[in-house]
């Protein structure tokens, strides 16, 4: 991995607050300002952002491109569906706990195999393993519902039963629940990437040999990063299932992993908030593209191609470049 892929870090506490406070206020006020449909789209975006944030711990900070993160997202979603169907559980907290456990288990298993490799082989291996899960979910239809998936009803939040009006429940109570989990995840990830552990990952990304030389146990660090990454994406899957109302194999198939990669690159994987911006932008882009034309894949594909050709640093990279140009002019 070369220097061009490095995550750039320039921030003071005040500048961070100047960004976080308005963003938080906007997100808190959102359900009262925009209509419920928009709120749901925003929720899909926030949930995708948690997944992309987890994914970027591998791509942006450790330098590993996974093409199999659909496995963890799907594991989270299916854990919720199984808990509902087989254990008759309805509590969102238990859903989250269960999906953390399951995605941790799967990512330890997958990670143990995958982190032996880097670059293209890492990508193919993650892809192949995620497809094992997909084919199992697809073929064992008496357990998983096959291509129809499994229904997930609205859960109880902190013990409170859901209100009757489903749309109202999702767009308000569940929105704030998702927002809270999102905030916790962002905070945790921020702490992780700025901890000595996070710095060690970046050292591995920038120069594997030197990192090993100063005593970093590369494979173990990569495995831990892989597991953390998997858990974050699993949590995203767990939050997604009740919102979508259905856990289906669509989120296990490898092209969904491609979408996670897409959103991260769209936002810019060299910055901390890039994946968040990218996930929300991608969700809006996809929602409108799907509504606008049946050829939405064509549209999104073209966006990706143009993005990779002219804006490899994503939205955040473009903003930064624009910002520094404006600064220089003044």
């Amino acid at each position: 991995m070369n220097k061009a892929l490095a995550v750039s870090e320039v921030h003071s506490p005040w500048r961070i607050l100047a960004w976080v406070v308005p963003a938080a206020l906007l997100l808190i006020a959102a359900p009262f300002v925009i209509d419920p449909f928009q709120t749901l789209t925003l929720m899909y975006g926030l949930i995708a952002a948690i997944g992309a944030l987890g994914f970027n711990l591998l791509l942006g900070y450790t330098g590993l491109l996974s093409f199999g993160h659909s496995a963890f997202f799907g594991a989270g979603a299916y854990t919720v569906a199984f808990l509902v169907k087989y254990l008759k559980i309805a509590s969102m907290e238990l859903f989250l706990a269960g999906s953390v456990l399951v995605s941790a288990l799967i990512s330890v298993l997958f990670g143990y195999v995958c982190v032996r490799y880097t670059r293209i082989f890492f990508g193919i291996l993650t892809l192949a393993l995620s497809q094992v899960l997909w084919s199992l979910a697809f073929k064992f239809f008496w357990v998983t519902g096959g291509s129809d998936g499994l229904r997930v009803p609205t859960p109880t939040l902190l013990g409170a039963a859901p209100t009757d009006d489903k749309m109202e429940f999702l767009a308000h109570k569940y929105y704030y629940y998702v927002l809270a989990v999102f905030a916790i995840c962002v905070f945790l990830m921020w702490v992780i990437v700025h901890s000595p552990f996070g710095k060690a990952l970046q050292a591995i990304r920038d120069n594997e040999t030197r990192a090993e030389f100063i005593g970093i146990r590369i494979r173990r660090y990569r495995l831990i990063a892989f597991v953390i990454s998997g858990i974050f994406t699993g949590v995203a899957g767990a939050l997604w299932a009740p919102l979508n109302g259905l856990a289906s194999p669509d989120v296990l198939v490898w092209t969904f992993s491609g979408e996670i990669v897409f959103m991260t690159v769209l936002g810019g994987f060299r910055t901390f908030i890039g994946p968040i911006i990218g996930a929300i932008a991608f969700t809006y882009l996809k929602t409108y593209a799907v509504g606008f034309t049946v050829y939405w894949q064509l549209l999104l594909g073209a966006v990706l191609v143009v993005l990779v050709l002219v804006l490899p640093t994503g939205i955040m990279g473009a903003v930064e470049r624009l910002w520094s140009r404006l600064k220089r002019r003044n």
Partner: protein
Amino acid sequence: MGVFLIHVLNALLYSSVLFLIAGGLSLIYGVMRILNLAHGNLYAVGAFVTAWVIGWAIEAGAPTALLFLLLPTGALAAAAVGAVIERTLLRPFYKRPEEYQLLMTFGLLMILEDLIRLVWGPNPLSATTVYAALGSLSIAGDRYPTYNLVIIAVGVIAAVFLWAFIYRTRFGVLLRATSQDKRMASALGVNVNRIYIQAFTLGCFMAGLGGAIVVPSQSAVLGMGVDALVLAFIVVVIGGLGSLEGALAGALIVGVVREVGITLFPEIELAVLYLIAALVLLVRPAGLFGRASA
């Protein structure tokens, strides 16, 4: 005995098509170090173009013999699409990290997937006239479609030609030289850009040929490209990315496992294939025939 023979033929049939797809994928990776995620879509392009051309020829009242001559049109179309893609979209990426190449081909996958839908609509296209024209023959008492033997023959011929092409011609020497050391080849006067576009076109031609010969026996449907790609991945991972011998061995292994799997363990047939691929990677990271690299 007859049943066993038919299973063997089915496995070979499957392996032939897989070899055409995976061989192209492997060739491209071997020479250019690009893993083309849109490769399956070129296979689909081959199938759709052939089915479309044949359907059109039947409407025009062409004799059946002519239809056979029209089969390769899909392969030519895929090769043409490949040549355009390499020249316009992939060439700017050779000096950039491979993550970007992967993303670019993922974008191409999305674009081609929908372009096929845009051009040929959402309904399957078939060219069964060709399939039916050959009828079936009797193998140890069981009926077996003759056309399937044609597919196997094309697979075998393609493998032989490719081998001769790469190991017995001047172009093959240049190809192997570029694959082994691009800089050195370039320093010795090989036009690397030309080799790249030729290799990519040849790889796409093979994928298109796979689609073109398969379409009379099964319709061209949307999504066939992505399905084929994932199987081709398994083949190249087992055999070794970038190795043609590996693609052949991998295709045979996957063909046999699939044929056995469909009859014995249909639920986990795909999972077994992926697990074999993962196991091979664990034991021999570069695949059965791969050179150790990366």
